[in-house]
């Protein structure tokens, strides 16, 4: 493809394009979601649905009671494990029931960009404050968000900003701010880190009320020289300086991350350069950048469609949504199953492995996690029994939701298109067909024949075990 047309808007808005956008924007989608998207124009669907500003959701509760504003004290600490889990379930719920909004994908992206680990302090209120911040800025301004993150209580603790003082600045946050959050390695010196660390001093965290506090006596109010500019920088002006002095580095670094998250894990330099120009001309506001990307020709090319390995939480939730297995916050057994499975697939929400976050893509797949993905999808087909309730695909009802359910060949065509983004080879479709037919003749196929349900279950197990099903 000619690189100059990378960002051109796609000319064809059809079911393939809709499935691609839905698969990258949501945590799973159904047939009717595709139908709905196609009732809108591309512009309308992207700008007025996926990127629409939404009201803030109500905060998580545990056993019906509020906890996010409660102070940190010994009495409350006995509840933290439960509170933390209620927040994980609450987020699962938002991911699955967000309508057509891209917001939760962006919240997860920001969580994995401005990383803090719950394990570093184990106070759930802190992670809620940060998660709420990411949601507020999901489509917002990156410079403002970077400033807020810099004095976010969880971040101050996680990267030691709270113990960094003018007499002994701690370099941890100053380094990661530049290396991982804004401009990337090669765009600053070790001296810039030391000077930046001085500019960020003075902030501590009130460990009871869980708020950030500025303490003048701890702040370095002298001159700092960063990127060759000298002034009495503080956290606000120092963060502004990063974006004003290094706009190209910052925009390209951040667009690379967006590209890795939404398109493909190995950034395409020409594409990133062009998208970064869009980011700069929009003063680091995310919404126009996302809009351009989702509609762009290269984002919809055969290279990119089906090239993304589903991250664990998306994989687990999407499977439930795709198979119409109901997932309600009222009953937490299934949420708990998803949470523990996500742990073993190496994605524990609020607890990325280190400050770089989850690396994603191929790092999700090992000889250990690949089979574990298979046993999860198997369990949804065979039925997962927890506390005497079985969570299970209703294979017959699901199959009959397709108009082609009684025509074996067309049904395989339709069902694989809906459930698998990767273009399936004819050989694959043929073998799936023979699994479903299980030795019977194709003209004898009917969902009303004896054993149809069992044969459909074999089909769905085999389909979801495919390497292609891991891709989106």
């Amino acid at each position, binding site marked *: 493809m000619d690189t100059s047309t990378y960002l051109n808007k796609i000319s064809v808005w059809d079911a393939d394009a809709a499935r691609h956008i839905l698969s990258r924007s949501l945590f799973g989608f159904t047939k009717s979601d595709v139908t709905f998207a196609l009732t809108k124009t591309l512009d309308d669907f992207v700008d007025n649905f996926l990127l629409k500003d939404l009201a803030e959701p109500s905060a998580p509760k545990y056993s019906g009671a509020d906890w996010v504003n409660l102070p940190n004290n010994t009495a409350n600490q006995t509840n933290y494990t439960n509170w933390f889990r209620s927040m994980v379930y609450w987020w699962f719920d938002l991911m699955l029931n967000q309508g057509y909004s891209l917001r939760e994908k962006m919240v997860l992206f920001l969580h994995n960009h401005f990383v803090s680990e719950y394990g570093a302090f184990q106070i759930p209120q802190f992670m809620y404050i940060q998660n709420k911040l990411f949601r507020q800025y999901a489509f917002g301004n990156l410079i403002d968000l970077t400033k807020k993150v810099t004095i976010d209580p969880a971040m101050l603790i996680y990267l030691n900003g709270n113990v960094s003082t003018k007499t002994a600045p701690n370099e941890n946050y100053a380094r990661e701010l530049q290396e991982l959050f804004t401009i990337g390695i090669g765009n600053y010196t*070790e001296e810039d880190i030391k000077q930046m660390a001085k500019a960020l001093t003075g902030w501590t965290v009130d460990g009871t009320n869980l708020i950030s506090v500025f303490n003048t006596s701890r702040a370095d109010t002298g001159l700092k020289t960063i990127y060759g500019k000298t002034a009495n920088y503080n956290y606000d002006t120092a963060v502004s300086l990063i974006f004003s002095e290094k706009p190209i580095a910052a925009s390209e670094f951040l667009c690379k991350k967006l590209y890795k998250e939404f398109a493909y894990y190995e950034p395409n330099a020409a594409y990133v350069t062009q998208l970064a120009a869009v980011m700069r001309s929009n003063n680091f506001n995310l919404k126009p950048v996302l809009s351009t990307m989702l509609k762009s020709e290269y984002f919809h090319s055969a290279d990119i469609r089906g090239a993304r390995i589903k991250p664990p939480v998306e994989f687990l939730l999407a499977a439930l949504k795709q198979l119409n297995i109901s997932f309600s916050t009222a009953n937490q057994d299934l949420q708990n199953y998803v949470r523990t499975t996500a742990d073993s697939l190496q994605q524990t929400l609020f607890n990325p492995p280190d400050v770089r976050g989850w690396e994603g*893509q191929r790092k999700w797949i*090992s000889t250990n996690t690949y089979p574990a993905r298979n046993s999860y999808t198997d369990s949804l087909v065979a039925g997962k029994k927890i506390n005497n309730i079985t969570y299970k695909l209703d294979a017959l009802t699901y199959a009959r939701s397709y108009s082609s359910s009684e025509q074996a060949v067309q049904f395989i065509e339709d069902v694989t298109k809906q459930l698998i983004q990767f*273009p399936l080879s004819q050989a694959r479709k043929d073998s799936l067909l023979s699994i479903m037919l299980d030795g019977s003749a194709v003209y004898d196929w009917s969902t009303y024949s004896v054993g149809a349900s069992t044969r459909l279950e074999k089909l769905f197990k085999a389909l979801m075990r495919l390497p292609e099903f891991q891709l989106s």
Partner: protein
Amino acid sequence: MKRREFIKNLGMVTGAGAVTFSIAGIPIKAFAKPFMNIQSTNGKILVLIQLKGGNDGLNTIIPLDQYSSYISKRPVIGVAETAAVKLTNQTGMHPSLLPLKQLYDEGKFTVIQNVGYSNPNRSHFRSTDIWLSASDYNQFLYDGWVGRYLLKAFPNYPNTPPPHPMAIQIGSVQSGVFDSTQGGLAVSFNNPDEFYTLVSGISADTDPPPATLAGVELKFLKEVASLSVQYASVIKEKADIGNPVANYTAGGTFGSQLKIIVDLILGGLTTPVYLATMDGFDTHSNQTVANSHPLLLTRLAESIKAFQSDLEKYGLADKVVILTFSEFGRRVNENASGGTDHGTAAPMLLVGKNVQGGIFGSNASLTDLDNNGDIKFKVDFRQIYASILKDHFGMTTNEVDNILIKHFDTIPIIKAATGVENDYELPNEFALKQNYPNPFNPATKIEYSLREPGDVKLFVYDLLGKKIATLVDSFQSAGSYSVNFNGSSLSSGTYFYSIETGGQKISKKMILMK
């Protein structure tokens, strides 16, 4: 899953009958393709231990010879002089490493001082990539040094996969150290039984994927599926045979990792490289509290001690060496949070029956620092890799240069490599090894190898060039030799020993210390 369904799924994901499976727990045949029953390695095993986050070298190995300088730079976190476990008068260890003292005394534990690389990078991630890929500071490689080694050792992979995994990693996210042009080469899992249960039912296939980026990712997924299927049975089988008896509980979850590895080695798995990982070394604050750095070192030492004792009990200790590494050491000066920020060079620890033992190199200098106030490296980390590849795995100098992209001199940290008998080869170079032990008192051993037969002279000289002793003066055939030298009648000091044959001459220095 019912048997019929199982076989059917298999056929579809694998293409016709390429893989058979264990049904009802009975391993039938575990390999996608027939393999030639040859050992592609010399039977030696390397266990890599990654200390993630940047281990604080100065609180691991303590420079007692510069103690006042040390404690003035680390008044809060410095290890008390009296608490340090003394290895020599100059050098101590963190008290948590006490379980390794006996191994040190037995010559089975080597400290390699000041390991790093030029223009050190203080980013966790970039520096980790440098260590895993064995690159220069400004070079970007997309495969790992072990990945490159394994493709040399198993040149027929993936067409003819070896009977046992080429590498095993305990964990679920594969390390870049095993990346290669043929994909990731390690099998990773947390536990052999669980792995076996998980794997029954999946498989690989041979359909060529389309020529798109998406197709490249599909190919990757198929390779991983294929690796799990090929090896799950043999891993379980060997784990069932192995029977470690040492106590790993003091090692915590890290101890369980080493226990799994020793279990597989004792069971007879011939996998040459293992990787275990320990997290938590990024100690920016309060690093001296009991559950921080001290606990990490305790777990490390207790696990290694247990591991080594199992190997010795079962007579397998001469096969295995353990090597620790970390992306960097930490700053010389502590920070105000009772911790240390990202630094540079640090010691590496090497354990095994065949290591040279002792301390290689002198303590980190706390006065001769780089312009950032950090420790200067004295040994390039790739010299350690080169020494392991050559002296442990028996690769040739050419092969080692190839694996490490350029030449690095080895250092004497491993005793002479001895290949397995059926894999014996004549030496492919004329070489004189560093004597062992060195410094010595009064006896030491000198090893050399001859590529061609000829007249051989091996003499010892003093500093002034006066001949002190004749160790060899005769015609010898090609092969590896070893002679002993006793300096009991000589005074302390530096001596040279020199070998000459076929017009070539090599000299080395040795130190007699009485």
